[in-house]
């Protein structure tokens, strides 16, 4: 792609070229967070979850916010790719309830039942416009979002967004499709409401032709940490658009400075959604309900939980969790070794802090490769204001 840009003769292209070789982002390998994926009943019938995950990985997604009608599709994906899926709870039992759910007690019961069973990061994406946002069922949804630490994912006009935000001082809204409003209108809303974020799902007007208009660049520059990407897989076929959607986004993100491009590509979604998701899923981690968690220390409680079953020489990811006190400013590293062989791994795995509180810390560790069968040991090094702690625990790999 860059080749064609460099060979183009137009003045605008020359400016782009100059900028892209100085301060602008090389986005070719930029990971993407996709904040707008549905895997609804019709899609489940046509595409198995393993294929969906393969498409997401082919698109180089860092993670995906998935909400589905019904919720089954989201759970299917979460089961096989817990490192990739951030689940959202959609108040729809079937597709086609977009215009009725906010007056339907059954939809509310459905949401309450699932909230008692599963864990989520968001409620949505739901469709809600104008003063319908103040009807009893949407008001109850807002209350549930606050009670369960969930972000609202609203396909709404500006009026409904403002009505939702006004219902509780803690509620946050991810504005689906940025309301299909223009960049100036979106900027005005973001300036007015600091609890509002916006996704760009199904917005062909962003990055049309592989370049960004000055208005969109101005929006991303003014609000570098509030905008994020999304595909919107509203039909089963559209799941197969995930890789192209990501590639296309990388093309126009190249017009932005590196920091802003990374923010829109994944970091803004990460910063908004991951603290909610990890806090909600971590209530079980500190209680040690996971069967495959390896406990390295009881106090502080340090656990390593592989996200997929480790196999010899196959790269995998794990969650490293620490529950204790005075963890603010803590730094932590996970390593693996074979004590009886006198060596460890051949890779320095990548650590991403997902939740970082005073009494709880969650770190995703990617690129673990245990290249021989036998007895391995996890080793964790924890540095806090109080000093350095190490913990180790042996485990067997067959």
């Amino acid at each position: 792609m860059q080749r064609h840009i460099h060979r183009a003769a137009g003045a605008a292209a020359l400016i782009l070229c100059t900028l892209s070789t100085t301060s602008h982002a090389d986005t070719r390998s930029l990971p993407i967070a996709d904040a707008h994926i549905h895997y609804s009943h019709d899609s489940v019938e046509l595409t198995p979850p393993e294929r969906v995950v393969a498409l997401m990985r082919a698109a180089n997604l860092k993670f995906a916010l998935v909400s589905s009608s019904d919720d089954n599709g989201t759970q299917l994906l979460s089961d096989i790719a817990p490192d990739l899926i951030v689940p959202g709870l959609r108040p729809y039992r079937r597709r086609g309830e977009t215009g009725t759910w906010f007056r339907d007690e059954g939809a509310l019961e459905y949401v309450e039942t699932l909230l008692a069973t599963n864990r989520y990061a968001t409620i949505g994406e739901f469709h809600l416009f104008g003063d319908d946002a103040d009807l009893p069922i949407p008001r109850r949804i807002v209350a549930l979002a606050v009670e369960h630490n969930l972000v609202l994912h609203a396909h709404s006009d500006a009026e409904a967004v403002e009505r939702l935000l006004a219902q509780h001082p803690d509620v946050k809204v991810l504005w689906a499709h940025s309301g299909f409003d223009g960049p100036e209108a979106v900027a005005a809303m973001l300036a007015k409401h600091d609890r509002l974020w916006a996704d760009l799902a199904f917005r062909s007007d962003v990055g049309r032709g592989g370049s960004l208009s000055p208005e969109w660049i101005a929006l991303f520059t003014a609000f570098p940490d509030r905008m994020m990407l999304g595909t919107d897989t509203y039909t089963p076929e559209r799941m197969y658009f995930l890789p192209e959607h990501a590639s296309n986004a990388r093309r126009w993100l190249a017009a932005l400075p590196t920091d802003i491009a990374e923010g829109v590509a994944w970091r803004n979604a990460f910063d908004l959604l991951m603290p909610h998701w990890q806090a909600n899923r971590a209530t079980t981690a500190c209680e040690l309900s996971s069967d495959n968690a390896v406990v390295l220390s009881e106090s502080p409680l340090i656990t390593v939980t592989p996200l997929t079953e480790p196999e010899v020489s196959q790269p995998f990811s794990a969650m490293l969790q620490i529950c204790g006190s005075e963890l603010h400013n803590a730094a932590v590293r996970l390593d693996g070794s074979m004590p009886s062989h006198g060596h460890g791994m051949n890779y320095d795995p990548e650590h991403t802090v997902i939740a970082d509180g005073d009494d709880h810390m969650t770190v995703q560790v990617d690129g673990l490769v245990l290249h021989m069968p036998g007895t391995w040991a996890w080793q964790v090094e924890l540095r806090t204001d109080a000093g350095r702690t190490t913990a180790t625990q042996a485990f067997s790999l067959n």
Partner: protein
Amino acid sequence: MGTWLTRARTASLAGHHRFGAWALALVAAFIAPTELKAQTTFSDDETARIAALGPWPQSVPADPGNALSGQPWAEALGAQLFRDTRLSGSGQIACISCHSPIQGFSEPRRVALGAKQHVRNTQGLWDIGLQRWFGWDGGADSLWAATLRPMLSELEMAGSIDHIANRFRGEQHVIDAIRSHGQDPAALSDTEFTVFLSKSIAAYLRTLTSPQTPFDQFRTDLLSGNLAGQARYPEAAKRGLKRFIGEANCVVCHVGPKFSNGEFHDIGRPFFTGVGQVDGGRYAGIQRLRQDPFNLLGQHTDNPSDSDARKTRTVTLGQSNFGQWRTPSLRNLSLTAPYMHDGSIDTLRGVVDHYADIDPTRLHTKGEAILKPMTLSDVERNDLVQFLKTLSVAERD
């Protein structure tokens, strides 16, 4: 043993049909007396370990960063280019010159002889698409980068990017292929043009999946309880297999269906390449990888995936990497003699002897603790050889 195996290899050069029948006759003659002894059986644990050595074949993932991978037209073009001497600087060396199909895409020389004398043994190419790293030192992180390297290496094909591009720019079938990929050949730089050729060859190499072997058949028969089938697997091979997955610890590194963990180890082989000259193995490979403009972090990678490139970002370089070599697959081993990174062992029996009689003082005290001398009788050593031979297809059409 050494003598007749060497002769068998020579015979295979003349005609591998004849070699298969002849070798089988020899094997039968050798194992016949031991067939009379007690039958070898496998415990549940051993059966599980054997199960983990299959099934075969495995599905081959796409070559990372290669948009041509899996495209039939690219595979066909790559198969032609694999045989094309014009890729080399002299116009006289093709990939196939050293990677001979009837020898498992390797050659009988100890070390390769390309444009100049090489210091490493030519590796076989069967099942290469299953590898994580490529080359004895893992200096390439994709099959297409591993394909480009010998084209440009002054020891091997000694081509150059501009010569290769210029030679093929007039080739209609190459131009058609590039156009069918949606690109304008004239707009490609020489580097991009040459990378396109290497990606086509890599697409072809990815299709080189080796067939099922007598071992695979035995594994199937063992798991399905087919006693008649199990009885057809030579008793000596069964004993060798038992030791391979058991006390000999071979399976610790030669693990899984491809009989390789894909990583790097020092097994106590010398790595001097001449007086005062040393081949640094994996250490040099990681350095080469990091400097390679064609690695998965570089600009010639198509659709770069964060998880594909993670290995390149995160691989560590340490003292112990000096003199480590990639664990090779053991499939089709009978075809690819001689053995080791420098071809310094002629026969499978020699390989077994190396491990059984390993010199612990060659290994660092912090080195691979599973490598210890074993007291093995002549028969026990040959059992391992007989097992290893069942990882190859003895006869092919």
